[in-house]
């Protein structure tokens, strides 16, 4: 396996923020890391890339411990933090060259590489801009370019879609798929669950510092309760009572989502029509990660 978290526990002072976190990311696999704010996602990733020391446990990247063999492990890691922070008084390309120096890349080569990667992430016209003038989205793109300096096989993306415009989100989506095809291991946390659904092969659920579930996307889809989205011309108490006898109705404006229906859609439609309710539309709801997520979290509450 490419990335392996082994019983990672972290305390900030007396507060335990991670407890025996263990999971893996295989080569060519995209793993989504999902949890509520403050669940411990960023802390896990910071430990994974070696910028934060675990109180106990370890993370192996390509077999190298980020605790004991930090330099070697870091040679195989690319990281894009949620809020990248750089030394502000540098121009982008200069800072890239400076950071490339840590990988043993000479100045001239680093400059050529910097131009190519920065152009690739859409910063071609901001090479000589000071990092202080960069927007949050530009900083993320810059961090993304830096994460690819030495073409590592493992990537940690922390809420990388935050602050990106639609074009940036699309670029990132394509990049992840490209890296996956190249056999890279990718762990990315995101609160945009639809993106996780689109990209991840597996999802690791963290809640209050503990890994509460790890599921493949297929498992998640299987776990999601079936649901129907029903649009009815008139919604009243009678309708809701009827639907309660057919499943778990939830009103969302003029739409009612009926989870876990006890009858087939055709039968439900027939019952409603017989009771005189004008059904304008009825369609099955796709299985959702959000639903599974909240169910898992809910179960653990």
């Amino acid at each position, binding site marked *: 396996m490419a990335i392996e978290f082994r019983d990672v526990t972290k305390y*900030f002072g007396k507060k335990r923020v991670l407890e025996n976190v263990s999971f893996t990311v295989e080569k060519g696999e995209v793993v989504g890391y999902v949890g509520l704010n403050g669940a411990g996602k960023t802390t896990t990733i910071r430990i994974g890339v070696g910028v934060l020391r675990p109180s106990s446990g370890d993370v192996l990247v390509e077999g190298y411990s980020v605790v004991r063999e*930090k*330099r070697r492990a*870091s040679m195989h890691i690319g990281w894009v933090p949620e809020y990248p*922070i*750089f*030394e502000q008084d540098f121009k982008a390309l200069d800072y890239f060259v400076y950071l490339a120096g*840590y*990988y043993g890349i000479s100045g001239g080569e680093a400059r050529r590489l910097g131009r190519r990667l920065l152009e690739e992430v859409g910063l071609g016209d901001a090479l000589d801009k000071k990092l202080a003038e960069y927007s949050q989205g530009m900083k993320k793109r810059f961090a993304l370019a830096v994460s690819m300096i030495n073409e590592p096989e493992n990537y940690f993306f922390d809420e990388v879609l935050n602050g990106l415009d639609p074009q940036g989100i699309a670029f990132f989506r394509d990049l992840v798929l490209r890296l996956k095809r190249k056999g890279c291991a990718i762990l990315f946390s995101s609160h945009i669950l639809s993106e996780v659904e689109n990209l991840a092969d597996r999802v690791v659920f963290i809640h209050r510092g503990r890994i509460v579930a790890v599921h493949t996307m297929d498992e998640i889809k299987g776990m999601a309760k079936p649901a129907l989205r029903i649009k009815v011309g008139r919604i009243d108490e009678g309708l809701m009572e009827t639907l309660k006898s057919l499943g778990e109705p939830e009103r969302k404006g003029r739409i009612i989502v009926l989870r876990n229906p006890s009858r087939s859609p055709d039968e439900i439609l027939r019952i409603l029509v017989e009771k005189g309710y004008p059904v304008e539309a009825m369609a099955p709801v796709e299985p959702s990660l959000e639903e599974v997520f909240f169910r898992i979290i809910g179960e653990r509450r």
Partner: protein
Amino acid sequence: MLAPILYDFKRALLRPATLLALLLFVLGGAALSYLVYGTFINMYPQANLYAVAVASGNDTVAIHGIVYDAYGRPVDSATLKLVGGGDTVLAEIRVGGIFHVEVPLGKLKEASKIVVETGSGREEYRLLGPVSAIDKVGFMPLGAAGVSRSLAPGEGGVPEMEIAKLYFEAKMILVSMKSGESVLLIRAVNLTDPHSPPHVVLEYGFAEGGVVSGPREGETGSIHYRRLGVLDDYVAYYRIRVPGNASVLVIRYSGGNVSGEVSITYSFMIPVEAAYAGVVAGSTGISLFAQFFPIIFLYLANMLMAKPRGSGALEFILARPVTRWDIYVTRYSAGALIAVVAPLLFIAAMMATNKLLLGVTMNMDDALVLALGLMGAMTAFYTLSYMLAASIKPGRYLTVSILLYVVFALFWSAIALIVVMVLGAGYSALHDTTYAMAYFNPLGASSIASYLVQRDYGAVAEASTASPWLATLSTLLWITLCFTIGYFRFRSQD
């Protein structure tokens, strides 16, 4: 890992702020030089004239003299100006070394002063009597225009005149008490025939302290005379070495039907190099700058560690193939190397500018001691600042470091005074206490180095507590402890 470390160092060194810091040191060195120049030339003017005007007939007066610098060395190229009322230049003559020039008597009468200009100085002189007296007595010596000039250190010698036979005067410039290097200037006029230069044999010897005028003729006593040379000019210049165990130089002249002697008590003179070293290493010299240079290192520690640490920028760097140790060391090294290079630049700039302004500079040993002291002090203070930058809450760094700077650089002498008062040791103990307390100050190495240089020239009282070894040990301890504590605190932070 060496390449990134070197790269980080280069990056830190080539930052505008760092280059500015180095430039400040160079400018500081030059500024110190001007400070030294300003103070030093008040004691030892750069353009000096030792001359005598002799009647030469036909409405002209011959001026025989020598132009010399603060160290008594003849100046090759100088200008002599006869200046009248309203600073009108009546005559301008190029002279060099020992010179003999003829000036019109009328111009000399009109002149209110004689100005000597060299590449590094300008001084005013005048005849020590009315011009008309030249005709009567055949000659008139020249002296400094201001009263203070005539009392200038080194203006030794007691004019002794064998009436109607020989005017003879000697002046000694004590360059170094350590080496005994001195310059002896002599001016003499054969009064029986002022148109002809004197012709006498010169001898010199040394007497113990307490001898005011030297032994009388025929009573040579314990004085051992050595031949100085034959004086056959109006002005002469000799280099001699004076012993430290004597205090009076006696010069004996004889020839034809004249003989006599003059004595110069040199034990009270401040040697030129001591005056110079005293100014360079004293409280108005290097110590003054050593008080303000730490601000630069306080800033460097902020720029290299406190600021990026506080903003979180170090974390992004830490995700590279480096450890916390690497980051701590590379950033420390960048500042520490500046703490080493900057004092060298400072001293070098000061020496170069001194050479330019004064024609002299410090000897290498003293320069090395001062440079080492400054390096030690700056490195220790930088390490202390860096430790704070790497360990305390970044928002508090500037407050705490500035407070420590004020205590260590500005108020330490006052604290020493308070300690003396609290201990009831009396004011006389302040000197020793000040140096004893230097070991508890990261900047202490600089004051001990200044002391050592000044002590070497007798420019400061002996302090039993000032030890170069303890200063070295204390500086190393400051550096090692602060560096280690800083690292362990830096390593353990999240």
